[in-house]
C-alpha cells in the first residue's frame, strides 16, 4: 500500500516536471498562448534579484517550519497580485528595483540570523516585498502576447522558486544543514546588496 502511494506521488511530480520542461522547449516562440506563458515563466527566472528573493521566501518558510512553510508561499503570490494590479494600471511605485533588492537583503538576512518572528510578522514582511515584485511583473502584463498565460507563467515560476527554497530549507533537519541554510541566506543577502548598490 505504501509503495503504491509513493508511486502516485512520483507520478504527479513527474507530470509537473514534464509540464515545466515542455514549455521551456517552446522558448523560441513568443506568439500566442504558449509564447505568453513562456514569457511569463521566464520573467522571474531571468532576473537574479527576483530569483534569490523568491528562493529566500521558500528558504525562510522552511526555516520557520509549519505553518509558515506553506503559508508564506500562499501569501506571496496573492499579495503579489496587488502589486501586479498597480503595475497593470500604470500606477507608479517608486523604487521598485530598490525594493526588490532590499527584499533579497532582508529575507536573506532573516535566514542568516535565524530570525523567528511571530507568523503574522513574517507574513507581513513577505507580503510587503511581494508588492514590489508584483509591480515589476505587472507593468509588462499589458504588452504580453497573452496576458492570462503570461500571468499564469510568472505565478507558476514564482511558486516553483519558492518550492526550490523550501527544498533547500528542509536541510535544517540536520545540524550541518542548518549551517548550510544560514549560509544560503547570507548568499542571498550578499546578492541583494550587490543589486541594491547597482540600483542606487
Amino acid at each position, binding site marked *: 500500500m505504501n509503495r503504491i502511494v509513493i508511486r*502516485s506521488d512520483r507520478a504527479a511530480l513527474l507530470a509537473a516536471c514534464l509540464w515545466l520542461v515542455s514549455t521551456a522547449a517552446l522558448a523560441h516562440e513568443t*506568439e500566442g498562448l504558449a509564447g505568453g506563458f513562456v514569457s511569463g515563466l521566464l520573467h522571474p527566472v531571468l532576473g537574479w534579484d527576483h530569483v534569490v528573493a523568491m528562493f529566500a521566501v521558500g528558504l525562510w518558510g522552511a526555516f520557520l517550519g509549519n505553518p509558515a512553510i*506553506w503559508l508564506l508561499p*500562499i501569501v506571496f503570490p496573492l499579495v503579489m497580485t496587488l502589486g501586479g494590479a498597480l503595475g*497593470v494600471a500604470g500606477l507608479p511605485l517608486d523604487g521598485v528595483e530598490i525594493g526588490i533588492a532590499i527584499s533579497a537583503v532582508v529575507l536573506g538576512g532573516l535566514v542568516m540570523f535565524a530570525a523567528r518572528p511571530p507568523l503574522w510578522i513574517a507574513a507581513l514582511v513577505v507580503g510587503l516585498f511581494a508588492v514590489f515584485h508584483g509591480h515589476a511583473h505587472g507593468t509588462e502584463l*499589458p504588452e504580453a502576447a497573452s*496576458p*492570462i498565460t503570461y500571468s499564469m507563467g510568472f505565478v507558476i515560476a514564482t511558486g516553483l522558486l519558492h518550492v526550490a527554497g523550501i527544498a533547500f530549507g528542509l536541510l535544517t533537519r540536520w545540524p550541518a544543514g542548518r549551517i548550510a541554510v544560514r549560509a544560503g541566506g547570507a548568499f542571498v543577502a550578499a546578492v541583494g546588496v550587490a543589486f541594491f548598490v547597482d540600483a542606487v
Partner: protein
Amino acid sequence: MPCERRPTLVVLGVLLASIPDLAAAHTPIEGIGDFYNGLLHPLLVPAHLLSIAAVGLLIGQQPSQSLQPAALACLAATATGLIGAGLGLTIELESLLLACAAGCGLLVAWRPRLPQGATILLGGLIGLAVGLDSPPNLVDLQTKVAALLGTGVAVYLLFLYSTAAADRLNARPWQQIAVRVLGSWIAASALLVLSLSLSGALSPV
C-alpha cells in the same frame, strides 16, 4: 481513486505538456477535425481551464459524498450550456469565469467545508458557464455538433480530473498543502488578468 486510474493523471499531464504552440484559443486548428478542435477548446482558453480547475479542486476538497452529485450537476449543466451555445445563445462570460477562478482559487487556498448544496451549485454553474462561453464558429450542423461534443467531453473530463486530483491528494498533509498552493496560484493569475480587464488595457485573448 483506484490504482489503475492513477497513470491516467500522468498521461493527462504529458498531454498537457505536449500541447504545441499553435492557433489562438477560439480559432480552429487545421487538419485535426471538428471533434478534436472542440476537445482542445477548453484547454486552449485559459479562463475556462483556470475556472474548471479551481471549481474542481474546491469540490474535490470536500467530503466524498459531495462529489457524485456535483459531478452529475456539472454534466447536466455542461450539456445545457453547450446546447444553448449551439443554438446561437452567445453570452460573453470570460470575465465572470476569471472571477469564478479567482474566488474559487482563494477558497481552495482557504479550504473551507462547504455544504453539499453549494458544491452541486458550483458544479452546475461552472458547466453551464463554460458551455455557454464555447460557441463553435461553424455553420454546418454536423460539424457543429461534433465540436460541441468534443468540448463537452473535455470540459467534463477536466472537471473530473481536477476533482479526483484534489480528492486523491488528501491522504497526507503536504498533499493538501500542495492543492492549497495551487489554488492560490490560480487565484493570483485570474486576479491579475481581471485587474487588466478593469483597467481597460486588455486586448481580446
